Every structure is written in C-alpha cells, then in structure tokens.
C-alpha cells in the first residue's frame, strides 16, 4: 500500500518534470513561430537607417510611424486593397451560395446518374492549376479579359468542388425524413433549402467560407498571370512588386510595413474566428 502510494507520487513528480520540459519546448517553438512576425512589425517601426543598427533593437527607439505614412501615400496599395476586396468577397459569397445549393442537391435530391456526375467533378481536385493555367489564359485573353479582375472572379462563381464535397459530407448526417416531411407540407425546393437546409449547414458553410476567403485573399499566381497594370493588381502582387522596387532603395521599414498590412486582415479574421477555423480544419483533415 505504502509502496504503491510512493510510486504514484514518483510518477506524478516525473510527469511534472516532463510537463515543465514540454512547456519550455512549446514556448521556444512559439517564439520561433511568431518571432519573425514580431521582427517584421518591429522593423516597420524603425527609420531607414535604424534597420542597419547593430546590435538590432527589438523595440525600436524611437518608434517611427514614418513607413506607414509613406505606405498610405502609395496609390498602388489602395488599388491593391480595393481589388483584393472585390475579388475575394465576390468569389466567396456567390461561390459559397452556388456550392451550398449544389451540395444540397448532391446529398439529398433524386437525380439519375447523380453519383457519377459527382465523381467526375472530383477530378477537378486532382488537376493542378499549372496544368490548366495556359489554356485558361488563352481563353480569357481571346475574350479580352486579361488585365481585368474577371478571370479571377468568374471561375469561382461556379462554385468550389472542395466546398461542395465537405458540405455534402456534412449533409449526409441530416435525416431524409426532415426533407420528406417538408415536402408533404407543400414546401418547394427553394423553401426547403432556405428554411431547413441552410440553417443546418450554416456552421460548415461559415468554416468553408472563411477558409476559401483566406485562400482568395492570399492568391498570388493567378493574379500575377492576368494583371499587368498597377491599378488593376491585387494586394499580394502589389506588395511583391513594391518590395522588389524598394529593396533596391533598402527601404526595409516600408517593405515590412507593406507586408504586415497585407497579412493583417486575414490575421484579424483568424484571431476572431480561431475556434471555428481550427475545429473545422481538424475535422476536414481527419475526414479527408
């Protein structure tokens, strides 16, 4: 009896020691994760010469808002924000509606060859963007859409196969009887979708919406291919181009301010919705 109590205490002491070690590792890892981002903010608050000071200052003294002032005098940045907001909101809002409606149909309605059609759509998940980007570019250039936001917006309006896939999975847990009884009550499909299905899948739609929004906000290759004039470019392309320009002038505070401002909106969205986002990702990964 006494012996077992002793071992228990020993185990407990051991695990406290292990826990402290684990905390140290986790904290060190955390510093490596956010350290570079903090350094980025710190650099953006220095003056042009301050960044070359050795040893470097982590908390700039004095703090200079100069880079941000110069940043907001750049018309490209405004255009970048405007274009990115137009593209990412249009695509994700309309595309999410298209995708939810399609997921409802695939999961709950009767249609001959429905499953075959769904399997064919899944091919899209296997086709890498680089394999279709050249013909897509040719199509859009034929109809004069190059250097407009349309090539970035229009394909997304037709829905997103990944989103349809996850919403369909989610809808499978909804019993058919719910829909059957609504039908008996004389509800049309629009009514069934808006008053029964959509409220049920709203959390899943929200999670997929946020993920897609972050993807659209951060997209780089497609905007790089389609957009040439600075006033048409999206934020990611704008900061990449400006960074190349200002690097030759060694204006690192400005470059870091730019990058920070570009990632800030998504960071804020993430911090607000972190619980939902993290849970939805954990779910999608284990279900995939």
């Amino acid at each position: 009896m006494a012996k077992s109590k002793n071992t228990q205490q020993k185990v407990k002491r051991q695990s406290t020691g292990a826990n402290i070690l684990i905390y140290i590792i986790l904290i060190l890892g955390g510093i490596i994760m956010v350290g570079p981002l903090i350094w980025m903010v710190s650099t953006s608050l220095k003056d042009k010469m301050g960044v070359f000071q050795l040893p470097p200052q982590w908390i700039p003294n004095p703090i200079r808002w100069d880079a941000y002032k110069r940043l907001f005098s750049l018309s490209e940045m405004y255009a970048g924000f405007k274009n990115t907001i137009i593209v990412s909101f249009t695509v994700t809002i309309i595309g999410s509606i298209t995708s939810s409606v399609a997921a409802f149909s695939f999961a709950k309605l009767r249609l001959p060859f429905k499953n075959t059609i769904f399997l064919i759509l899944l091919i899209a998940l296997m086709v890498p963007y680089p394999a279709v980007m050249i013909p897509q570019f040719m199509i859009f250039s034929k109809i004069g859409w190059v250097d407009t936001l349309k090539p970035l917006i229009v394909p997304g309006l037709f829905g997103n196969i990944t989103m349809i896939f996850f919403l369909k999975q989610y809808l499978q847990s909804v019993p058919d009887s719910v829909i059957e009884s609504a039908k008996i009550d004389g509800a049309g499909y629009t009514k069934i979708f808006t008053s029964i299905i959509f409220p049920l899948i709203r959390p899943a739609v929200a999670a997929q919406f946020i993920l897609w929004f972050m993807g659209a906000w951060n997209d780089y290759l497609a905007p790089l291919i389609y957009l040439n004039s600075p006033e048409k470019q999206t934020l990611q392309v704008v900061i990449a181009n400006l960074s190349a320009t200002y690097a030759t002038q060694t204006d690192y505070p400005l470059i870091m301010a730019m990058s920070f401002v570009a990632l800030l909106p998504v960071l804020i969205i993430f911090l607000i919705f972190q619980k939902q986002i993290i849970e939805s990702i954990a779910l999608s990964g284990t279900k995939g």
Partner: protein
Amino acid sequence: MTEETVVEKKKKTFFHHDSKLYRDEHRAALLMIVLPVIGFTIFTLLPLIYSIFASFTNWNGLGEMTFTGWRNFQLMMKDNYFWQTLGNTFYLMLGIPIGLILSFLLASALSRGLKGTTFFRVVYYIPVISSLAAIAIMWQWAYNGDYGLVNQVLALVGIKGPNWLQNVHTVKPAIIAMSVWKGLGYSMLLYLAAIQSVPKSFYEAADLDGANAFQKFKNITWPMCRPVTFFLIITNVIGGSQIFTEINIMTPTGGPEYSSATIVWYIWQKAFKNFQMGYASAMSMILGILIFIITALQFYVNRKSDYKLS
C-alpha cells in the same frame, strides 16, 4: 460493382416512377448542380484537353499552333533546366518529412491536456494563415546576410551565417526551413485531432498489459495517426510539387545558377515570359501526370486503410 447497381436502381426508379413529382425533383436537382458542372467543364475539363493538345504543338500563344508530335517531350528530355527544376522541386520536398516529424512531436506534447493548449494551437497556426507573399518578403529580408534576423540570431551563439539566398548551397535549405515553419501549424493541428480521437480505453488496456510509453506510442498512437500521416504526405507532395510564390518572390531569377527554380516556376517562365506555350504545356502535362499518380495512390491506399477516424 456497387456503383453500377446504384445506377441500375436509379434507372429503374427513373423509368417506373415517371410521375410529375419525380420529374419536378429531377429538374430542381439538375438546376442546382448545373453551375458547378458548367464551371468544371469550362474551367477545368476543356482547358485540360486543350493543354494535352497544345503540348504536341509549337505555339507562341498568338500565332498558329503547328503540330510537332512528340518533339516537345524530346526537347524536354534534353533540357537541363527542366531536369534541374524538377530536381529542385523534389529536393525542396525534403522539408515534408522534417515538418511531419516536428509537428507530430508538438502534437504529442499538446495532447497531454496541459493548460494553454488553445493558446499554443493559435500561435503555431498564425504562419499558416499568413499571406505567403508577405511571408516570403519577410523571410527574404530575414535571410539577408548582413542585417537579416537569421544571421543576427546565429551571431548570438557565435555562428557567422552566409548570405542565405545568394548561395547555391544554402538557398534550398533556407526555403525548406521557411516552408517547414509555415506549414508546421497545419500538420500539428491534424495530428492533435487524430491523437485526441484515440479511445482512452486503448491506453488503459495497454497499461493493464504492462506496456511502456514507447510500446504504447508504437502500437497505438502512431498506427492510429496513419491516415492523417498519409493525408498530409499526399497533400504536402501535391502542394510541394506546385511551389511557386515563395520562389518567385525570394529568388526572382530562380536563385544562383537556377538552384532554387522549381518546375512550376520554369513552366510559368516559359509560358508567360518566353511565350513558348506549347513547350510549357508539355511540361505542365508531365507535372499533371505526376500529381495524378500521387493522388490516385492516395485514393487507393485510403480505401485500403483499416483505420477510420471520425
């Protein structure tokens, strides 16, 4: 087999219950999926077919396409840049196992239910959601030889770091380190979910049998995480084979002696800078086939997998 019978059954219901009710439902169902089907046809299927066709032509994107048979593929075999960029792409994938091991260890540490787990999950996830372009710009400066963050930290322990992105030997490891840093949170999250979904009774049973920590890890935790490991390997390989943004931003000319140029970067260069659309299409087909094989493998092994996490 089962699919066929499903289709057969569908057909039967389709013909036998040809009532107004069913016709209405079919029409509504079709209407609801018509947009994604059209989108898929216009933006994926047709471009894919067009790409296959274009890869057998000499084409600058503007003029006529002249059919040249297998010539693009023959040229590719002799194109040193093609092999080098393909090789670089695979080299950069060395980060995948490193990232998986690190994220699994972190997830194991977090799965002990310590206080602050939520906080650490968020902290480790911040690089994942951050814009890749912004992150690449930041790391480009962090890898600067004289004033970059990396060398300043190394200087604290007395190491004089190189000018990472300008050096043939360090540019790829530098990009790998950045990729691991950026992707760690995602893999960690999936591993954490997998570890936490292992039923407690498995460990209790193992305790009764007198299993030690390593045996429990080897026989319970790791096998239960296998589907996640496989999922991560596949998605990382697919993502890794298309790595472009960080390359184009951090090393706009493909790095010293093309040492960081990847295959997608080379395709993009050929297509949109040199206007060799036919040749670029041919390379993108090779990339597509490689990715297709990897994805098909995922579906195959997933179907065979005994473990289902819910």
